[in-house]
């Protein structure tokens, strides 16, 4: 709190990003959030509130003073951009300098996760951390088996401090081979198993680049690859996928690193894939955001911008690499070793995306969490550096994980029935990778996480997401789809890669459809369950009157009234209430009344004509809590999971 100079500034205007409209309100600065509360001029609607977590703020910019006040532009990591105009320059400067300090925490202890308290008891918190068990996951894949075993060489993080403790290697890979190989690999990241394709006993392994320079070789490393190759009887060779562009890999040789020389390794097939590095990706996304952030954008500038920023090209390159990996494993039955430079960015992308294509389990909600836990968290994707959790080197920041989520989204667009989750889950995970509200993504690797005792001091995101998983279900998901299509074969034609509006314009309400098919269908699906219950209940009541249902259901015990979950408040997720939903809510109210008065009526399905559809309305009005109620106690107040921005009216840019 010592960094907050001015906790409250009144008469602040919030400018809409893509129109000339603005709203005025009060800005509050708390220890964790920057909060904008709209002045409530219309008594009928609840005031709009924007909650911005300090960790979400990527940059704060104070523009030069104008006649109307001092503009403050805040860019967030979840791609929200807000533009305030503060009347007094001094207030603006106070907020600005406070934010500058608050958004750059210098130690982990300052992160929100250590103060976030969702009112859970200790047991619930612990259970949350136990939800995902990677040992069990490897067992599910069929490992350990007669060819692969668990090794304890890294039990104390001695061999490789960025790897997890438990690693799986070929049975024939002895400890000296492992140790030797790790010394020949960048950061000690020697080849280990990450996915086992049981059907063909083919393995997906990952590592970092070899320290080969121009001519160095390492017999242990060669034996390691030999061991991986030998562990698979289906194929005489193992693919080595270097996910970098060839030129980059060659340049690395000058620094004593490089790539495998096919002459030294027997039975390998070496392949460059050509995914660009973290710096290229960072610049590319920056350019993309610049393009789509400009007002009055023409279609031609938009398409030319999409092309020149290269973002979709990079996304396609990652998907292409994953398809290559998948084909090698599932069609040829060959094992594949994937690496890039350090083996924690592109390697993580390709391995996890490949596994998603190969294994339907990872397309379920739980499985997707396991996948992220395995290929990203445990194998040491540097979340702290890449997501800029602590004040660090800006050159280490890169949207590698965001890009992975986008690749998954592109696949869900091509295979709408194959995934148990909808894009809401991807957006929510993205939100929390940057929020630092949960412990899962803090720090760069498992060793550091253990040092920080995250398991004891923070909460797990997975528990939170699983608790409200109804919100993330894909209503079109078909579990049997996987039987017919265990392996997904996406098209790689460029026209199938689209701009992910719901991610990069998540908070720009005017861009989105005014009605959400997803939300509607999801609601109907839930309402179907509820109606089934109501039917059972009514049939029981009819039975009391001596009328038996036409087809008596053996499990006719009426379940407890199902409580429909509240939707997260996000613009895409919270497309305004459709009449259906208004009706449903109306029904619920009626049903409650009925229970009290024991009235039975028919109004339920009749359209309630007085509930005007709020196409141009706001989802913000659904909020039950209001900031003003709790103004004094904001420290204790639970903020909404995702807060909505707009009371926007669809506006034309004529």
């Amino acid at each position, binding site marked *: 709190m010592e960094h907050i100079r001015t906790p409250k500034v009144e008469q602040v205007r919030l400018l809409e990003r893509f129109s000339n409209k603005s709203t005025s309100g009060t800005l509050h600065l708390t220890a964790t959030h920057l909060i904008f509360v709209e002045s409530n001029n219309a008594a009928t609607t609840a005031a709009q509130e924007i909650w911005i977590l300090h960790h979400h703020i990527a940059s704060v910019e104070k523009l030069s003073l104008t006649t109307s006040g001092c503009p403050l532009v805040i860019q967030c990591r979840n791609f929200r951009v807000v533009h305030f105009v503060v009347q007094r320059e001094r207030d603006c400067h106070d907020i600005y300098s406070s934010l500058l300090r608050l958004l750059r925490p210098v130690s982990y202890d300052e992160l929100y996760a250590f103060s976030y308290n969702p009112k859970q008891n200790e047991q619930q918190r612990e259970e949350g951390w136990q939800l995902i068990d990677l040992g069990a996951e490897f067992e599910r894949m069929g490992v350990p088996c007669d060819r692969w075993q668990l090794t304890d060489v890294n039990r104390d993080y001695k061999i490789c401090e960025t790897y997890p403790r438990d690693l799986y290697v070929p049975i024939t890979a002895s400890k000296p081979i492992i140790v030797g190989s790790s010394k020949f690999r960048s950061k000690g990241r020697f080849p280990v198993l990450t996915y086992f394709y049981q059907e063909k006993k083919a393995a997906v392994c990952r590592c970092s680049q070899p320290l080969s320079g121009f001519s160095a070789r390492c017999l242990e490393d060669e034996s390691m690859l030999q061991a991986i190759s030998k562990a698979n009887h289906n194929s005489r060779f193992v693919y080595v996928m270097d996910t970098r562009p060839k030129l980059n890999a060659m340049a690395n040789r000058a620094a004593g690193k490089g790539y495998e020389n096919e002459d030294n390794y027997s039975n390998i097939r070496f392949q460059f894939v050509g995914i660009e590095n973290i710096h290229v990706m960072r610049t590319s996304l920056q350019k993309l955001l610049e393009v789509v952030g400009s007002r009055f954008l023409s279609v031609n500038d938009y398409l*030319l911008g999409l092309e020149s920023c290269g973002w979709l090209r990079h996304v396609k390159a990652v998907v292409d690499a994953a398809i290559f990996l998948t084909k090698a494993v599932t069609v040829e039955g060959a094992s594949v070793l994937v690496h890039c430079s350090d083996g924690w960015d592109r390697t993580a992308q390709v391995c996890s995306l490949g596994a998603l294509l190969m294994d339907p389990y990872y397309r379920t909600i739980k499985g997707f969490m396991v996948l992220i836990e395995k290929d990203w968290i445990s194998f040491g994707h540097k979340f702290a550096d890449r997501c800029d959790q602590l004040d660090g080197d800006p050159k280490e920041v890169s949207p590698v994980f965001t890009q992975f989520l986008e690749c998954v989204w592109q696949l869900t667009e091509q295979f709408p029935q194959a995934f148990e989750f909808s894009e809401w889950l991807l957006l929510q995970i993205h939100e929390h990778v940057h929020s630092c509200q949960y412990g899962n993504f803090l720090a760069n690797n498992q060793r550091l996480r253990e040092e920080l005792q995250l398991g004891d001091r923070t909460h797990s995101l997975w528990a939170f997401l699983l608790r409200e998983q109804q919100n993330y279900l894909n209503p079109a998901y078909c579990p049997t789809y996987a039987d017919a299509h265990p392996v997904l074969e996406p*098209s790689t*034609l460029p026209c199938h890669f689209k701009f992910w509006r719901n991610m990069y314009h998540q908070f720009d309400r005017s861009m*989105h459809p005014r009605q959400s*098919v997803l939300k509607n269908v999801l609601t109907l699906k839930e309402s179907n369950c509820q109606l089934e219950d*109501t039917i059972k209940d009514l049939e029981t009541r009819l039975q009391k*009157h001596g009328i038996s249902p036409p087809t008596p259901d053996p499990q006719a015990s009426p379940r407890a009234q199902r409580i429909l979950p509240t939707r997260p408040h996000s613009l895409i997720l919270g497309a305004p209430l459709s009449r259906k939903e208004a009706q449903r809510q109306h029904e619920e109210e009626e049903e409650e009344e009925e229970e009290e008065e024991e009235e*039975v009526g*028919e109004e339920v399905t009749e359209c309630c004509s007085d509930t005007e559809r709020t196409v141009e309305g706001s989802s913000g009005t659904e909020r039950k809590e209001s900031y003003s109620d709790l103004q004094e106690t904001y420290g204790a107040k639970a903020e909404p999971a995702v807060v909505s921005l707009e009371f926007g009216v669809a*506006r034309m840019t004529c």
Partner: protein
Amino acid sequence: MEFAELIKTPRVDGVVLRRPFLPTVEGTLCLTGHHLILSSRQDNTEELWLLHANIDAIEKRFVGSLGTIIVKCKDLRVIQLDIPGMEECLNIASSIEVLSTLDSVSLMYPLFYRPMFQVIEDGWKSFLPEDAFKDLESMTEEWRLSDVNKDYSVCSSYPPLVAVPKDVDDDTLRKAAAFRHGGRFPVLSYYHKKNGMVMMRSGQPLTGTNGRRCKEDEKLINATLRAGKRGYIIDTRTVSVAQQAKARGGGFESEANYPQWRRIHKAIERSSILQESLIKLVEACNDQSHSMDRWLSKLEASNWQTHVKEILTSACLAAQCIDREGASVLVHGTEGTDSTLQVTSLAQIILDPACRTIQGFQALVEREWLQAGHPFQQRCSQSAYSNSKPRCEAPVFLLFLDCVWQILRQFPCSFQFSQHFLVLLFEHTYASQFGTFMGNSASERSKLNLSQKTVSLWSWVNRPQEVERLSNPLYEANCLVIWPSVAPQSLLLWEGVFLRWKRSSRCLDEAYDEMVHIIQYNKELQNKVNNLRRQLAQLETEEAGEKED
């Protein structure tokens, strides 16, 4: 029958049909006067029935004695026929070429087609101007139906009956018609019930270089203004294009002569440019290259999405003037048969919930396109593949459908129809067994006596099973004005048309079916709950009654 002369080889066996993402079929190829038929003559296998009128272009290739014909259709599908025998292949190819480019209207398929379904309601009589006017009469008395054009002499592209201000007599109309391109004097296009404002459309005024004026024209459009109110003229051309039109006798309304009107220029391209754009877009979509940059730059170069944005923006502007500004609007471009209709019809989609129903949309197409004289036959005689030089072809109506689809995507619960309906209309404007889109105007259709000699598309569409198929399961009547977003990020490529044959749509179809299933199941459950409730209520009142006794 003269078709026989054109068909050199009516039948070839052992022909193989190849289509992307669909199984290969081997069978007998037959050519009839109107169809190319491929059948394997086995049960349970698909037969291909392709209207010659649907064929846009063909290509021939030979490998030894095996000939291959690539057939490119107006609905953008591309199929391949492998035909054994060089002579047969050449004969088939030349027959297809001739049959698919027959110019004679009297040979067109709708005149030969006999419906295999029972016509419940004759579509030719479904949307008569008289009936539409009855609705208007119930809302306002300021308009009348004029039969000044009853013999098509005042304006050849207008229907016999048009709605005009009550205070304006037919003589004034005739004089105003002489001052407007193609005789298209300002007529009522839409009446906004909420505030009584109207949208009119016309051809450009024939001011010429010396600024000719016409008092009657001024009187006609001023008659639609309320006292002290200003109106808006939306000229769909840019200022410079409109200026250039003066040299050819056209022009625009000057401030001096129309002081009560504010003129706004928009930039909807002329039809020849739109055709070019379609050709480029389809070529981009057919490109098999895996380069992202190439795809995006081709998509950009096609300018298709720019046209979509421009048309939508203009329509929103018109709607905004009417609904938000409370002003009347006159829309025109040059002829008033293309971009004008795009704007007036889309503005109605935005403003009028009735146009978002299946019936209402048909009425809109009938009123604002067919009756309003959009030259369908000229515009749709070639599509994106044709090698012949385009004459008057242009995807004006397809762009309109694309814009409707964009709004549908943004308001997926506000339309009674699904995109299937839009795709169906696209197909039938280019090749059809129905007479609806034949001819270029009401007068041409009447001369051909199409309402007697052909079946209307609406007769087919309005059967219950077809209505069911075209319905949007998520539809909930929405009485509000729906303002679409026109940001480039909100506009999408219409995959249902342009990528339709480029991918396996099975996954998407199945997902759609699943959604339909969830919604239908919900309705069933709702009904069941209602029935049970009613039953229970009845029992309880009976019992209560017994107790009282």
